[in-house]
C-alpha cells in the first residue's frame, strides 16, 4: 500500500513532480559547479601566481660577496665561485620535481659593445658602451630521469619580460637587447652587434650577434644584452658554468611551522616538514641535490604569494558557501511548496486514519526519491556547468570528483527533508474537517 501510494503520487501528477525535480536538479547543479570549481581553484590560483616569477634563487655557497649595483656586478671576472650547468637536470629528480615549474641558470659578464652605426664610417666596429651580457636559457630541453623532456628557461621564470621580435635560439649566435640599451645603441630587430671582452679590449672575432628581439623587463635588464649561456661562458672564459639559478616552484603557503629551522626539528617534525611542499622544504631538497649551493627563498615573492593565496582562498570558499546556501534555500523552498500544495491530500489521509508518522514517512519517501534522482541529474548538469565556468576563467576544466557526488546527493536529501519538515509539522496540526470542507 505504501509503495503504491508513492508510485501513484509520481504517476498521477508527473508534471508537478517534474517541476519540483527540475528545481532540485538545477539547485544541485549550481552546488556541484561551485564545489568542483572551488576544490580545484587552489591549484589553479597557485599556478597563476607563478606569473610572479621565480621564488627561489641558487648561488654558489663558496661565492665571494657580489658587488652588484644597478644589476651590474663589479667583481673582477675571475673572482667568486661558479656552478656546473651539467648538474641542473638533477633538479627534476628531487622529491618535489613535479612542483618545479621552471628554472633558468644565468651567467653575467661585463663587456663592451660596438654600435653598428659606427660601421659605415670606419668599416670596423668600435666599442662604445660598457654593458652587462646576461647568458641564459630560453627554450632549453632537459631530459629527465623518467625519459621525458622538460622545457624551461628565462621566459618561464620571468614571464613578465616582453619581447618585441622573438627570443633568441639557444644554439645560435643571436641575442635580445634591453629596451633602454637598444634605444641608446640605435639597434632594432635584425641589427648586428659586435661584442668585446672588456678586460683585453681586443676584439674576439667570432662574437658577432644578430639582434632578434628587444626586451622590456622594467628592471636593470633593460640595460643589458641577453643571449645564449654558451656565449656568456665563452666571453667570461667559464665553459659549462653558471653563477645564479632562478627556480619557480609551486608551493603551499607557509605557516609558522614551515618557517622553523629544520635543524631544530625532531625526526617526526622533520619528516612532516619535508613532506609538505613549503617553499623552504623545496629549497632544502634542491640544496641536497646540488652540492655546494646556497638556496635562498625570495621572501618578497614567496611571502606575498602565500598571504594573497590564503586570503583569496578564504574568499573563494566563502563564495562557494554562499552558492551552496542559495542552492539549499531554493531546493528547500521548492520542496516546502510541494508539500504545502498537498494539504487536502494530507487531510484526507488523516481523516481515513493515517497517523502523523505514516503521513510523514510517505512524504519523506517521495522527497528522498526525488532528491536522489534530482541530485544525480543535478550532479551531471553541474559537471558541465563547472567545465564551462572553469574553462572560461582558468582555461582548464576541473576534474569530476566522486566526493562531490556524495556531498551533493547527501545535501539534496538533507535539504529536501528539512524543507518539507517545516510544512509537515504544520500539517500535523491540521484538523482534517475544515480543510476537506475547503476552508
Amino acid at each position, binding site marked *: 500500500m505504501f509503495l503504491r501510494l508513492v508510485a501513484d503520487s509520481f504517476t498521477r501528477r508527473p508534471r508537478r513532480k517534474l517541476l519540483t525535480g527540475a528545481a532540485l536538479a538545477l539547485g544541485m547543479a549550481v552546488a556541484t559547479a561551485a564545489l568542483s570549481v572551488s576544490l580545484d581553484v587552489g591549484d589553479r590560483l597557485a599556478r597563476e601566481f607563478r606569473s610572479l616569477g621565480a621564488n627561489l634563487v641558487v648561488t654558489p655557497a663558496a661565492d665571494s660577496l657580489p658587488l652588484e649595483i644597478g644589476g651590474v656586478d663589479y667583481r673582477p671576472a675571475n673572482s667568486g665561485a661558479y656552478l656546473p650547468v651539467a648538474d641542473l637536470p638533477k633538479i627534476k629528480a628531487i622529491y618535489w620535481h613535479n612542483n618545479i615549474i621552471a628554472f633558468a641558470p644565468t651567467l653575467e659578464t661585463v663587456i663592451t659593445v660596438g654600435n653598428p652605426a659606427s660601421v659605415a664610417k670606419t668599416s670596423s666596429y668600435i666599442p662604445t658602451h660598457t654593458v652587462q651580457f646576461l647568458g641564459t636559457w630560453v627554450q632549453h630541453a632537459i631530459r629527465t630521469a623518467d625519459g621525458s623532456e622538460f622545457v624551461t628557461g628565462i621566459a618561464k621564470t620571468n614571464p613578465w619580460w616582453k619581447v618585441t621580435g622573438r627570443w633568441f635560439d639557444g644554439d645560435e649566435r643571436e641575442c635580445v637587447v634591453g629596451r633602454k640599451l637598444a634605444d641608446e645603441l640605435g639597434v632594432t630587430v635584425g641589427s648586428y652587434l659586435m661584442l668585446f671582452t672588456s678586460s683585453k679590449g681586443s676584439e674576439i672575432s667570432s662574437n658577432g650577434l644578430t639582434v632578434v628581439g628587444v626586451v622590456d623587463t622594467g628592471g636593470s635588464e633593460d640595460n643589458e644584452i641577453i643571449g645564449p649561456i654558451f656565449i656568456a661562458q665563452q666571453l667570461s672564459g667559464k665553459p659549462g658554468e653558471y653563477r645564479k639559478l632562478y627556480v619557480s616552484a609551486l608551493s603551499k603557503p607557509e605557516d609558522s611551522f614551515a618557517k622553523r629551522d629544520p635543524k631544530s626539528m625532531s625526526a617526526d617534525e622533520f619528516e612532516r616538514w619535508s613532506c609538505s611542499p613549503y617553499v623552504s622544504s623545496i629549497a632544502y631538497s634542491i640544496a641536497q641535490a646540488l652540492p655546494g649551493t646556497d638556496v635562498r627563498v625570495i621572501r618578497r615573492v614567496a611571502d606575498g604569494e602565500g598571504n594573497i593565496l590564503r586570503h583569496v582562498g578564504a574568499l573563494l570558499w566563502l563564495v562557494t558557501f554562499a552558492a551552496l546556501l542559495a542552492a539549499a534555500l531554493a531546493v528547500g523552498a521548492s520542496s516546502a511548496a510541494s508539500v504545502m500544495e498537498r494539504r487536502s491530500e494530507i487531510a484526507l489521509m488523516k481523516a481515513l486514519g493515517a497517523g502523523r508518522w505514516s503521513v510523514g514517512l510517505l512524504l519523506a519517501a517521495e522527497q528522498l526519491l526525488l532528491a536522489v534522482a534530482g541530485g544525480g541529474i543535478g550532479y551531471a548538469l553541474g559537471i558541465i556547468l563547472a567545465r564551462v565556468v572553469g574553462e572560461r576563467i582558468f582555461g582548464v576544466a576541473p576534474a569530476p570528483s566522486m566526493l562531490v557526488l556524495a556531498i551533493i546527493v547527501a545535501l539534496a536529501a538533507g535539504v529536501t527533508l528539512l524543507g518539507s519538515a517545516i*510544512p509537515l509539522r504544520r500539517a500535523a496540526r491540521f484538523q482534517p474537517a475544515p480543510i476537506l470542507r475547503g476552508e
Partner: protein
Amino acid sequence: MGAAVGNNRGMFWRILRRQIFANRGRLFVVLLALAAGAAITAALLNLQIDAKRRLTAEFSVLGPNIVIVPVQTDSEAPSRATLDERILDEVPPTSPDGWSPVNASGYLYLVADLSGPTSRTYQPVVIAGVRRSLADKGVAAMRHNLRPPGGRPCIVGSKVAAQMHLQVGDQVLLHSAAGEEPCRVIFLRNMGDAGDAQVSPELEVAQRLAGLPGRISLVELTARGTSGQVNGYLEALRKRFPNAGVRGVYQFSEAQEKIYSKISGLLTATVVLVLVLTALCVMAAMTNVAMERRNDVGLMKAIGGATRRVVRLFLTEAALLGLVGGLVGAALGILLSMELGKAVFGVAARPRLIVYPIAVGLTILVAIASSFPLRRLAGVRPAAVFRGEA
C-alpha cells in the same frame, strides 16, 4: 467617471493587499528567497569591488612598482650617475587609487670596505644608504626607538653577516676614500634578493662615504592602484621629472591584473547563479499561486476583469515582493560583506552605495521574471473553473 477610476484604483490595491497576505506561509517563503538572493548578491558585489582595492594593497607588499633612476649620460661609469635627494619630497604623496599614501625610498649605492668588531681586515661590500619617505613614519619611528646607544644603526644582509661573522649588536666600520663611519648592526636581513649582500646605513652616512651630499642613485615607489591608474601616475611622474628615468616594474602588476580578473570572474559567475537559484525558488512558489488562484481569476474574469488588468495585478504583486525582499536583503548583504571582508582580509570591506540600488533592481527583475508561471492564468476560462474542472 473620475470616481469610478478612483474606485477602481482603490479596489486594485485592496485586492493586492488581500492577495499578498492571503497565505502567510508562502509569503514568508517568497520573501525569504528574495531577501536571501538579494543579500548574497549585494554581499558578493560589494566584496568584488572591495577585493580589487584589497588586492592592490596585498600586492603592494610584494615590492615597489615604480623606480626612478638617473638618465645615464656617462655610460662608462653607470654607478656614478645620481639624482638630487629632493626628488623624494617632490613625489606626489597620494597613490593613484586616490587615498593611500605613496611609499617612497631613496637609495645611494657605493662600494666600500667593511670591517667587523674584532678583525681589522677589510671586505669590499655594496653600501645601500636608505632614506624612507615621510609616508613611512611608522618605520622611521621604529628605527628611532631601535637606535642603539653606540653609533648609528645599519641593516646587514645575511650573506655579509655570514661571511664576516656578524651578529645583531656588533659595531662595524665602513671605510671609503672619503672617510670612515661606524655603525651598529640592528637587524640581519634575509630576503633572498640583492639586499642580502649589502649593508644599509642611513642615507647621510652613505652620502658622506661616497662624498656625494644630497645625492641618491635610485628612488623606489610603491603606489597603489589598478594598472591603468598606475600608468597614468607614471606619465605624471615623467612630466614632473623630465631629467630622470621613470619606469614601471611589471613583475607584480601583471600578476595582480590576472588574479583580479579570475576572482572577479568567479564572483560574477556566482552572482548570476545565485540569482538564477532565487528565481527558481520564487518560481516554485508562484506555480502554487497559479494553481490556487484559478478560482479567483475565474471569478474576476466572470465579473468583467480584463485579462490585462488581472495580469497587471499579479505583476505588481511580484514587483512589490521583489522591492521589499531586495531592500531588506541588500541592506543585510552589505552589512554581511563588511564582516566577511574582515574575516577574509582582516579589514572590514567598505560599503559601496552603488551596490544597493543594483542589488535591489536585480531582485525586482528576478521577482517579475519568475512570476512566469502566472502566465497560465491568462488562459483561464471562467466557465470551466466554475464547473469544477481542474
